[in-house]
C-alpha cells in the first residue's frame, strides 16, 4: 500500500497546515513489532526531517498502541528525557489504514554492535554510560498517579510476582517443557523483593540498541511500547543484563562501560542509591523475560502462523539465556 497520499491528506486536514510536500519516504529496517518510516516533508514551506511510526504486521499482545506511545513520548519529553519530539498523532485508520504518529528524526545510530565497539560514542564510554543513567532517572521521575498515564499497566501483587505469573502462563501455553526456565522462575518466586513504596514509569526496554547516539552525544531514547508502572530496578537490571551487552560482556553497563559510571549518573539525578545486590535479581528476571519473548517469537514461526528465518533463529537464543540464568542463580544462592 502506498501511504504517501494518506500522509499528505492527513497533514492537509490539520488546521495549522496549508501546504505539504513529501520529499522522501522510505521504510527503515528493523522493527518486528513497529514500522518506522523515514519521512522528509515540507510543511508550509518549512522542511522537517521526521519518522512516522506505525504498527507492523505482527504485534505483541502486551505492547502499547501508537496513541498510548505518543502520550508517553509527550510526558517523557516534558520530564526532561531526551526523546524525539512528538509532532502529530492520528488515531484514525482512514489515512494509511492504521494509526500512526510522526516525530522529529534524531541523528545517530541505534545499532548495538556498533555502539559497544566504538570508544568515542556519545562523547566516550564513561560519559555515555553516565548520561544513560541520568536519562533513566528522568524517566523514573514520572511517578504513578499521573492522570495522563492512567492507561499504563500496574503490576499486582508486586512487580516481581506479576512477571513470575505472566511467564509461567507463557510456559503453559507452549508445547515444549522448559525445565531450566522453570528453575529460574522458581528462584524468582522464592527470592522476589517486596513491593516498592512508589511505582515509577518503567521504560521496560531501556537497553543498548534502543537509544540513538552520535559520537558527540546521546540523541534519543526510543522504543517505548512496553512502558508500564513498576520497580525502578527493572530498568536497571534490563540495561545491565549480560544478554544486552552485544558481546562486550566485560562492560556490564549495556556493553558501554562499567556499572559505576551508569549508576553514578542515575544516582546524581534521582538522589537514590542503587542497591547493587538487588539489581542481580532483576538481571535474572531480564534473562528470563528475553527467554520468554524469544520462545514466543520462535513459536510464531513453528506454528506456521508467521514463517520467518529471523523468528526461527531467535528461538535458538534461549539456551544462552538459560545458561545465564543458571549461572546467576547459582551465584546468588537460595535457589
Amino acid at each position: 500500500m502506498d501511504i504517501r497520499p494518506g500522509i499528505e491528506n492527513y497533514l492537509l486536514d490539520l488546521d495549522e497546515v496549508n501546504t505539504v510536500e513529501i520529499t522522501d519516504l522510505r521504510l527503515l529496517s528493523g522493527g518486528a513489532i513497529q514500522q518506522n518510516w523515514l519521512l522528509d516533508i515540507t510543511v508550509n514551506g518549512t522542511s522537517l526531517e521526521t519518522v512516522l511510526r506505525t504498527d507492523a504486521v505482527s504485534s505483541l499482545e502486551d505492547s502499547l498502541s501508537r496513541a498510548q506511545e505518543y502520550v508517553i513520548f509527550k510526558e517523557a519529553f516534558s520530564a526532561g528525557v531526551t526523546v524525539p519530539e512528538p509532532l502529530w498523532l492520528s488515531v484514525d485508520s482512514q489515512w494509511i489504514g492504521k494509526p500512526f504518529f510522526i516525530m522529529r528524526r534524531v541523528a545517530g545510530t541505534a545499532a548495538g554492535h556498533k555502539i559497544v565497539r566504538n570508544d568515542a560514542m556519545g562523547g566516550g564510554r564513561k560519559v555515555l554510560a553516565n548520561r544513560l543513567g541520568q536519562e533513566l532517572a528522568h524517566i523514573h521521575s514520572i511517578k504513578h498517579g499521573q492522570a495522563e498515564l492512567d492507561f499504563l499497566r500496574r503490576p499486582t501483587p508486586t512487580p516481581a510476582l506479576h512477571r513470575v505469573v505472566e511467564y509461567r502462563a507463557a510456559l503453559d501455553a507452549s508445547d515444549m517443557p522448559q525445565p531450566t526456565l522453570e528453575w529460574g522462575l522458581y528462584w524468582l518466586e522464592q527470592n522476589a523483593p517486596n513491593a516498592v513504596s512508589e511505582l515509577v514509569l518503567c521504560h521496560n526496554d531501556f537497553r543498548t540498541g534502543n537509544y540513538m547516539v552520535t559520537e558527540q552525544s546521546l540523541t534519543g531514547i526510543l522504543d517505548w511500547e512496553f512502558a508500564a508502572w513498576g520497580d525502578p530496578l527493572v530498568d536497571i537490571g534490563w540495561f545491565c543484563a549480560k544478554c544486552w551487552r552485544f558481546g562486550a560482556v566485560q562492560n556490564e553497563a549495556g556493553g558501554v562501560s562499567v556499572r559505576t559510571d551508569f549508576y553514578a549518573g542515575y544516582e546524581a539525578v534521582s538522589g537514590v542509591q542503587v542497591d547493587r545486590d538487588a539489581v542481580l535479581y532483576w538481571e535474572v528476571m531480564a534473562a528470563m523475560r528475553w527467554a520468554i519473548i524469544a520462545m514466543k517469537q520462535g513459536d510464531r514461526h513453528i506454528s506456521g502462523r508467521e514463517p520467518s528465518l529471523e523468528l526461527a533463529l531467535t528461538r535458538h537464543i534461549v539456551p544462552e539465556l538459560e545458561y545465564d540464568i543458571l549461572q546467576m542463580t547459582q551465584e546468588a544462592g537460595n535457589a
Partner: protein
Amino acid sequence: MRDNPQADDLLQIAETTFRQEILPLLPTDKKYTALMIANAMRIAARQFGCIESNTAVEIAALSELLGGPAVDDGLGALLNLNKQFAAAIRSGAFASGKDAHDKAREHLFTSVQNRLVEVNPKVISGDRNDRG
C-alpha cells in the same frame, strides 16, 4: 543405507561455499539475511551430528532424577520426562536444601550446554557472539 556425503556434511560445505562465494557479492541491505541463512545452516549441520547420542544420555539422567525406570523409546519418552521434570521443579521438589537440588542443577547445566554446543558454542567457551 544412504550414500555419503550426508546431511551434516552437505550443510557444512553448502554453508562454507555460501559464505565464501555468495555473501561477498550481496548488497549491504541483504547481508543480514544472508548471515542468518548461513547461521541456520550451521546450526542444522551441528544438530545432525549430535541428536542421537544426546537423547539417550538425557533420558537416562532424567529417569534417575525422577526416580523412575529408564525407558528408552526415543524422543516421545524424553518429552514426557522433561514435562515431569518441569512440573516437579515448579512444585518445589528440587528447591534449595532438598537432596536432589544439586543434581538437578547439574543436569540442567549439562542439558543447556549440550544445546549450546549446537546453537552457539562460543557461549561456553566464553567468547560470545554478537546479537541484536
